[in-house]
């Protein structure tokens, strides 16, 4: 265990995870996906969650994003405890407080880019803040592509539309699940720049699951997971330092 443990961050947390545990299966086939994880995700920070396959990073994100429920422990988005909410409230929470960017299939194929971006707001029956909408469109530099359907956009453009959609409702926190996993390095860089800028310029909180050290280098903080536990943490990461930790963890594991 290194110096990187669970110290409280000085800034207020956008999301807090306390003693979260989740297992799959039972008996000898039981897999512990999350083993008593506690973690604060600071507001206005870009956090990466890393770890080998099966480390529990995706489960952690799904639990934080109100997509999955844990066996025990609690998750707070702002002051709200997710574990006490029913489906209806969870749906509303996802709609109003959370933004999503998935690895692929982020957009509704029948809707244009603009409609996709406006969808969460439209569902909620809210009008997007015009100025903020323009800012977002400007940030993702898609002004000339807004009327196109997803199948008329490149993979990178589609992911940028997805980021715009996640940002436009000013959610408390944006979760990105391997957002560059399906992209070439240039398009991937564009998407990561975009996320970075949203944190720097607009104070957006972003949490990203990735296994790419290059992607992780765009963030403020990297949390490493292994066997369902937080095993390490880096601040102001660079590609080299991330690789170093990954190698160390891999050796330890072997």
């Amino acid at each position, binding site marked *: 265990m290194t110096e990187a443990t669970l110290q409280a961050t000085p800034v207020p947390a956008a999301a807090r995870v306390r003693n979260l545990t989740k297992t799959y299966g039972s008996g000898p086939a039981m897999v512990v996906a999350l083993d008593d994880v506690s973690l604060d995700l600071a507001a206005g920070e870009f956090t990466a969650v890393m770890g080998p396959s099966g480390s529990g990073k995706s489960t952690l994100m*799904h639990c934080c*994003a109100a*997509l*999955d429920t844990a066996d025990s422990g609690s998750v707070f988005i702002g002051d709200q405890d997710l574990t006490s909410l029913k*489906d*209806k409230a969870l*749906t*509303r929470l*996802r*709609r*109003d407080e959370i933004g*999503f960017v*998935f690895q*692929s*299939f*982020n*957009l*509704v*194929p*029948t*809707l244009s880019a603009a*409609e996709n971006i*406006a*969808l*969460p707001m*439209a*569902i*909620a*029956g809210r009008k997007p803040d015009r100025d903020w909408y323009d800012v977002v469109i400007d940030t993702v530099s898609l002004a000339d592509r807004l009327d196109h359907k997803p199948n008329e956009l490149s993979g990178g453009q589609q992911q940028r539309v997805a980021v715009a*959609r996640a940002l436009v409702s000013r959610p408390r926190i944006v979760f990105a699940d391997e957002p560059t996993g399906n992209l070439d390095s240039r398009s991937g860089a564009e998407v990561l720049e975009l996320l970075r800028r949203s944190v720097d310029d607009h104070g957006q909180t972003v949490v990203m699951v990735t296994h790419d050290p290059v992607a992780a280098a765009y963030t403020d903080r990297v949390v490493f997971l292994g066997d369902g536990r937080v095993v390490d943490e880096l601040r102001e990461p660079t590609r080299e330092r991330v690789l170093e930790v990954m190698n160390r963890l891999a050796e330890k594991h072997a």
Partner: protein
Amino acid sequence: MIKAALRSLLGRKMRLLMSTFAIVLGVAFVAGSLIFSDMLNRSFTAIFASSVGDVIVRPEGGASVDGTPSTLTVPSDLIPRLESVPGAARVDGNVSAVGVFVVSRENKLIGGNGAPGIAVSWSDAPAGHGLEGLSVVEGRAPEGDGEVALDVSAAEKAGYDVGDTIRVITSTDTPVLQPELVGLVDFADGGSLNGATLTVFDTDSAQRIFLGGQDAYTDVWVTAEGGTSQAELRDRVREELPGDLEAITGDDAADESGNMLLEAVSFITTFLLIFAGIALVVGAFLIANTFSILVAQRSRELALLRALGASQRQVTRSVLAEAAVVGALGSTLGLGLGILLALAIRAMFAQVGLDLSGQGIIFAPRTVIAGYTVGVLITMAAAWLPARRTARIAPVQALRDDVALPESSIHRRLVAGIVLLVVGAAALTAGLFLDVPRAGWLVGGGVLMIFLGVTAASPVLARPVLHLFGVLYSRVFGPVGNLAGQNARRNPRRTTATASALMIGLALATTMAILGSSAKASVDRIIEDNFVGDYVVGNVVGQGFSPAIGDQMAQVDGVQTVVRQRYAPVEVEGDDTYVAAVDRRDLAGLLDLTMAEGSRDDLVDGAVLVSEEYAADHGVTVGDELEMDTPAGTDRYPVVGEYEENPLIGAGVVTTLPTLAAAGYPESDNQLIIDTDGSPGVHERLDAVVADLPVVSVKDQAEFASEQREPIDQLVLMIYALLGLALVIAVLGIVNTLALSVIERTRELGLLRAIGISRRQLRRMIGLESVVIAVLGAVLGLLLGLCFGVVLMYALRDEGLEVISVPGVQLVVFLVLSIVIGFLAAVFPARRAARLDVLRAIAAE
């Protein structure tokens, strides 16, 4: 390869089940029709086997079993001569008559509604081949005046027991009899009356009541001694007969009678088979659609098979093999359901008097073969196009993320659709308006081609409707409506193919609605234009009633004129038709017959008038003679005039009352037209005359009109009920397509849920999409039905259906109904979609 296909089938049990539904219903219709017609057949053969002797002697041309009444008889002095024929064990004379009905304690007619009321004289003679004929099961046989026996089921229905005094009505001079019930009879060796009632008299009474007291018989049975065949005996009997009598074997007589009755009900089978055809066509649409979707969803899997070395043909064949299995499964279930359907039809016919409850289910091999052949072939044919498309999947697509199944160009479909439409319309027009052979097939084929054409062209035709819905939905329902509208537009082929099933059902229903409404309007107008006199007296079962009623009514206070009308089935120039007979004085009076040729005064006994239409259709002019085959024999009758169509005369040939009597028809009236002085209470006084006779009723114009409309309503209702099944199939089709779409869009639905669409919004989205499909089908169906209905009415204008009436309210009801259907169809798929686990949906492949 086949194994892989079957595996993938099993992996999709739900989809399999849903696509099978359509086939199940179609095959059930085919099987149900065949089973029911076999049951009819068997029961008719059975009924006559024990109601004929070995050899029957009867007047030539006077077949008494088929319901044609006859006053011709076999003289009783023939009996001793027949008894001396070698091989004759015994000879029995029988008297029989029809139009004899039992009236229950509650003054209700038993049987009626089409089932004949038969009277016979008692005889203990054995039926043909030594079968026991009619036998007494309770009490004793009638022995004298004022005694009768009834068949068991008639007595049971009327609530009479042995010893009761019962009421029997006849169409003879004595309309009501009140004899004592002394016994119950039944066919000992099987055979059912199929709802007909049997009243048994002793021979003397029967002769007195039905033959005017002659010592004669309507027919004579000669029973063969052991070792003498029916044919041998017939030949020997023949030698003894005078020229106006004939002898036939019991077997022939049973066949003859059975065939005649079967012919009369064969329309039922035809009718059911037409609906089986409709169900199968609608079903085929759904199967083609289902397979298209399934194949599209599996295109990656199929591409993988291709990449692993399967040939194009193998892939195609694997899809066809799947279709064969689905077809076989559907056919099996359909056969089972067909049995239930046959039972349901049997119950339905029991309601209208054709009681087959004694006849069990007959599951002939032909039914099984027909069911499987139709089911499997149609499924495979429907899967053929989607299967062929799979062959065009390139192996490399296995490696791609999103595979689009190559589809034929929409424009090619539009062209094909228009060609089909034009050819179909041409065939339809030819079948309806031109005098061509097999017009029915042309019409049916034309309609089918139009349906196929519209379906093929509908992805283009439907564009404006879908667009309209898209705009409307996003205005009214916001983003959820927008999503629903977009989803309906995303695959116009699928949407329109699903809608076609509903289109066919509604097009046919609309056609029927127009037909029924026009027929009723025409009937109303004809009655309004032509109803003369104040009251019409008729027999609800369409059979004759005693002339004594007319005599009594003429004496009723306030009655000025009574016009008698009689109708007799006659073979005129080789065609079976009806000849009307009236008093010639009435031609100038109430009937007010307008002559186109000749004068009504020329109608003397032995002459006939023909209607203009009859004259035109049969090429008859004044001065010709018509050859008519009557119970009295074949004779020629001069045509002395042509009259303009007159709705009061329901036949194309008119003669005088004595002419009909001389031709050997019993003197019973079919309709009376009564003119009164309008004094109060006339209706009640007339009713009082027939109070004892539930078959005969007195009606004023409004009552008469509604009575005439009633059968039209009943027919339309029956057809609606059957078309309802086509609608059920259509609904299943929508359910199926939506459910498959939900499966196909699992990830998208997961995404929507993840970004905050609530379950309720998701359900509404799918419901709205379903309504688009339903309304699209309804609009296309209503438009097509309107065209069919109006064209059909034009074609039928010469048949007396002159008024074309479009029942607007009914059509609106259809449209509203289809919206409801749309919502209902979405319930199951929407629930399925709403229950999706968000996380799993996003992760789904």
